[in-house]
């Protein structure tokens, strides 16, 4: 997750760099008075790299898919939670207190 996020940030940074170098390139073309026919090769390579990183991030950062099948291990409910709002203390544990020397020290 954290790794995916870092990769995503890195990918976006690469994209920014590619944008910046294209701007520089266009400035250069303006000076030499040539027509712009397409971005230079290294920019295209950078963009591709950035895209790959971003796809990686986009697929990993939102988290794993969860199974929707009710009988899969993640969804198969094996026990209900103790209904703790209705917990009562007047049970047999009262007669057999724990042999623990517990104390909250401060």
């Amino acid at each position, binding site marked *: 997750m954290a790794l995916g996020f870092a990769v995503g940030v890195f990918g976006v940074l690469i994209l920014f760099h590619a944008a910046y170098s294209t701007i520089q390139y266009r400035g250069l073309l303006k000076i030499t008075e040539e027509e712009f026919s397409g971005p230079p090769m290294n920019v295209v390579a950078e963009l591709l790299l950035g895209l790959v990183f971003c796809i990686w991030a986009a697929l990993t950062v939102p988290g794993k898919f969860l199974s929707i099948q009710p009988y*899969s291990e993640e969804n198969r409910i094996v*026990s209900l*939670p103790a209904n703790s709002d209705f917990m009562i203390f007047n049970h047999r544990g009262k007669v057999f207190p724990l042999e623990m020397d517990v104390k909250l020290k401060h």
Partner: protein
Amino acid sequence: MVSKTEETQLSNLETQVDNGGGGAWEYLSLVRKLKVRRSDRVLKHGLSILNDPKKRSSLGPDEWTLYEQVAVAAMDCQSLDVAKDCIKVLQKKFPESKRVGRLEGMLLEAKGAWTEAEKAYSSLLEDNPLDQVIHKRRVAMAKAQGNVSVAIEWLNKYLEIFMADHDSWRELAEIYVSLQMYKQAAFCYEELILSQPMVPLYHLAYADVLYTLGGLENLQNAKKYYASTIDLTGGKNTRALFGICLCSSAIGQIAKGRNKDDKESPELQSLAATALEREYKQKASDKLSLLTAALKGLKVSS
């Protein structure tokens, strides 16, 4: 709802923590998240964190949640001194809090001081008459005192307002079952199935109640709900498999005299029996003979 993965995770963490492998806070968080009742362990490991100033301060604001958790666990273990100390700390931090007030009421309950606890809860309810947890505490208190009928009365009153609260429906269902009032319990379980149709355990409990009620129609319905439990668990619920066998045999006995118009699917029970045999073979092969004898008694063995 505790799913299979969560259950294994919990038991792994439990053994790890019990053997001193660390991860106590993770364990306590998981216990809180799954709402399971592990009071003795929570008390032991929670205190070990709370008594260590370094660990305690590293929790940040979660520290107070832990105090609450440990306080409740301590009450459950009858370590009332610990509970009292925890509540004192919380009260110092949150002097006006209703939540701490509720804990104090619970402490009175644990002591068995019912009238004082009742007084504390009523005063809390005056401030906020819609505090669900306090309403529930009153029900629990009536139950703890043994006044089950009073508890039912409270609970019904509560459910008239908060009728979408499935935890309370479940509590009511369990109380009714304990009183053998199965028709009422069946109603509650229907309510639970409606609110969460994908939880197999409600189907299972409903089927149990129907089976206990008896009668041909109820038995057939029970069989259907056992079947749905099997479908929702992928056939991994032993109780549902047994339920299918029992229902089939009971239906067979009732329907023996009558004409067999309504076709029962005969395969389901033999499949269930085979599945049971297989499960026993894998997990408890020494008890397999008991199973086959029992199934033979039910005349469903293939």
